[in-house]
């Protein structure tokens, strides 16, 4: 081939390569559009045996644990947008992550949150407890895991005795902070009081750096503050009734009776709404939500 012919071939190749890549891109996009729905519909975890995966990792189990944990985070985050969300693969993914690397503290700490949350999680506090207990066994002396266990017992299972025991166990570890002993004593005395709840959620907020967990803690703290406010306002409304024989028709009437100072507002700044029965409620425009008691009893532990 002549020099000119060789140059022409080169230029043709240089033009053809990007064109073929562009054509491949569009073709792949079309194939994806057809197959994505099928892929989304079937959730798969091909290997579910943590022990088998550990053997197959050929000694690189630590990195594989990181990969499985990242997959668990992605799985959890990806599912949150779904309606009627279920997390059937969350426990197996966490089980594999923590078997591959029993010292992967992030998987215990955040994984327990993902598992236990009723609204934005799998609503399986029983599995969360199982996970944290496994973490404590593999990482003795880590008070943060004891604090997580105490929190799970207190908030999701309303088991104040076990919660107090967990906080006490954490306080007895070499680095266990003094507030855990105080928390254990308080749980023994006052169980599920609003004040105790606020103290525990404040600890969750302050001891976490992850924005999702901090947001959850902040929203719960706002809800608890609103619950406390409503209780106090309801008491004031009852006092009004005792004095005047009927419930107040407006907040202004309560102010006139010197039972309130100003317009009471929730943590988002919206004024509380007074109902005809003298009960205060959150403003419908407010994003604050009063935390609900867990309604679904924990199911038996998964195998």
């Amino acid at each position: 081939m002549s020099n000119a012919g060789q140059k022409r071939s080169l230029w043709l190749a240089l033009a053809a390569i990007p064109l073929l890549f562009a054509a491949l891109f569009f073709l792949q996009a079309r194939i994806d559009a057809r197959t994505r729905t099928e892929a989304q519909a079937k959730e798969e975890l091909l290997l579910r045996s943590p022990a088998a995966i550990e053997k197959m990792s050929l000694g690189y189990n630590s990195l594989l644990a990181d990969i499985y944990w990242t997959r668990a985070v992605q799985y959890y985050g990806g599912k949150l947008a779904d309606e009627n969300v279920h997390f059937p693969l969350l426990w197996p993914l966490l089980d594999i992550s923590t078997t591959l690397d029993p010292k992967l503290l992030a998987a215990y700490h955040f994984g327990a949150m993902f598992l236990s949350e009723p609204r934005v999680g799998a609503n399986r506090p029983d599995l969360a407890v199982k996970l944290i207990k496994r973490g404590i066994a593999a990482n003795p002396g880590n008070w943060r895991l004891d604090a997580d266990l105490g929190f799970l017992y207190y908030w999701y299972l309303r088991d104040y005795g076990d919660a107090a025991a967990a906080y006490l166990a954490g306080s007895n570890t070499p680095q266990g902070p003094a507030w855990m002993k105080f928390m254990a004593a308080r749980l023994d005395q006052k169980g599920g009081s609003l004040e105790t709840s606020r103290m525990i959620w404040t600890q969750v907020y302050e001891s976490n750096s992850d924005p999702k967990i901090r947001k959850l803690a902040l929203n719960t703290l706002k809800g608890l503050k609103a619950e406390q406010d409503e209780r106090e306002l309801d008491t004031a409304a009852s006092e009004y009734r005792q004095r005047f024989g009927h419930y107040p028709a407006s907040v202004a009437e309560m102010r006139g009776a010197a039972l309130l100072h100003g317009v009471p507002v929730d943590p988002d700044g919206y004024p509380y709404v007074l109902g005809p029965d003298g009960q205060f409620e959150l403003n419908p425009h407010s994003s604050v939500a009063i935390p609900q008691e867990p309604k679904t009893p924990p199911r038996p532990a998964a195998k």
Partner: protein
Amino acid sequence: MSAMPGVVAINTFREAVRDRVLYNLVFFALLMIGAAIIVGQISIGIERLVIVNLGLTAISIFGLVMAIFIGVGLVYKEIEKRTLYSLLSKPIRRWEFLVGKYAGLILTLVINTAFMTAGLAVALFYVGRPFVRSDASILIAIYFILLALALVTAIALFFSCFSSPMLSTLFTLAIYVTGLFAADIRDFGALTHSSFIKTATSVLYYLVPNFHDFNSIAVAAHGESIPFALVWQNTLYALMYIALLLVASSAIFSRRNLK
């Protein structure tokens, strides 16, 4: 001992550089940069952990690939290209040639690992973590990886003395994987009621190099300390096994008919 093994070693290293073996460092650098940037965004609470795990795993895997695929060709290539004949016509003994080849590949692996270690340190610095005393575990874990690589190279060299590169690769890989599961094999034997199997698995356990003991990646990633006793025990174990393999390789290569 003459200076010939040193000369062969330096030339083996130069040959590896000429063959662009060290290009894997570019891939390693890209891997570390990618991980440092991406992991923080797609996972929670494991930014530093994943950098250490990924860095040490990459050092180990890249090193293994180099040790096996270059190791099995150390002798074979020289015979294939007929350069061995001109080499052996010089005042060099066969065992000196083997030791020199082995040392040259080890030098390549050490330099390659040193660059990767520097890359890992930069990636750790990038994820915003100051270096602390417990990071010494990372250096020890890298040292253990190097010991394992030296052992794998010796195995590859041993097989390359009497077998083809393809078979030598398979044999070396088989020994490596068996060595990783050595403890499991012994435990499996202990579970049976057959005294023959028990004895056979015990013999196999002591016969194959126990690579599992050289794996301290998880310990280093969690910043835990590695006992000093393990450092000298692993060093001694690797040196003794390498000496055994080099002696065996020299014995086979010295008797090999090269005509």
